[in-house]
């Protein structure tokens, strides 16, 4: 499987480490969120048959975190973004 890194171009998936659902970026605010919010964030995941946004880490490359949109049925990779850009677009990073 080849992941098209936004900066470095096509790279072998063996260079990457898979973390999981990209919704991990959206951690609730520890001071204001309810216990249910944290329960949902910690334990509940969607399991779609289709497009799925995932966090991948380029451990054997430039050590960047990526948000990879992958079709879980065909394994086709639809989109690759820097997790930094995604997080900032969502207002996660000040």
């Amino acid at each position, binding site marked *: 499987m080849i992941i098209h890194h936004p*900066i*470095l171009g096509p790279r*072998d998936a*063996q260079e990457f480490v898979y973390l999981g659902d990209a919704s991990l970026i959206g951690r609730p605010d520890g001071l204001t969120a309810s216990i249910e919010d944290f329960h949902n964030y910690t334990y509940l995941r969607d399991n779609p048959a289709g497009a799925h946004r995932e966090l991948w880490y380029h451990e*054997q490359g*430039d050590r*960047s975190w990526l948000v990879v949109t992958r079709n879980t049925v065909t394994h086709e990779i639809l989109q690759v973004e*820097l997790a930094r850009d995604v997080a900032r677009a969502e207002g996660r990073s000040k």
Partner: protein
Amino acid sequence: MPDFILNPITALGHATPEVDIIGPWTITERADVALASLAVRRGRLGDVQTSAAAVGLPLPAAGASASGALYSAFWMTPEMWMVEAPFASHEDIRAHLLPAFGDAASITEQTDAWVRFDLAGADLPRLLERLSNFDLAKAAAGAATRTVMEHLGCYLIKRTDTLVTVYGPRSSAQSLHHALIVAAQSVL
């Protein structure tokens, strides 16, 4: 207290760097380069670029390396570079860089974290294709990347068609050296 007299040794454990000549290739351990990583602090890229230009430190683009009169550098990750300088004059490389960059960058001494081997000779892709998935033949001169050799995370820098630098973890220096020697002997 007794006076301990400690002799400096290279990453491979000898008094002087090791040189191996195998067929067309020369594999040279380099102990004469000081290293420091330079990471831009949030929103300070402009300040770092100005300071780097003032001290003659190149900041190459993604996947590249560049040499200056004194300092050289290769790209590690967005807004982060590894800086190389002569060990003889810049053993305390962080102290040399810190006044120029102040609080615009985080500078970390890296000299003793890495072992450096310079591989010289014609037809280097034939040797390195045994060790790494990086397409050295296609890469332009100056290309720099992180890659895996012998299960070790290494930096690979193509200086010219006939000169390549490999940086590997110093604590695995002998394993990496062994891998280079074995690969060279096997493709002779």
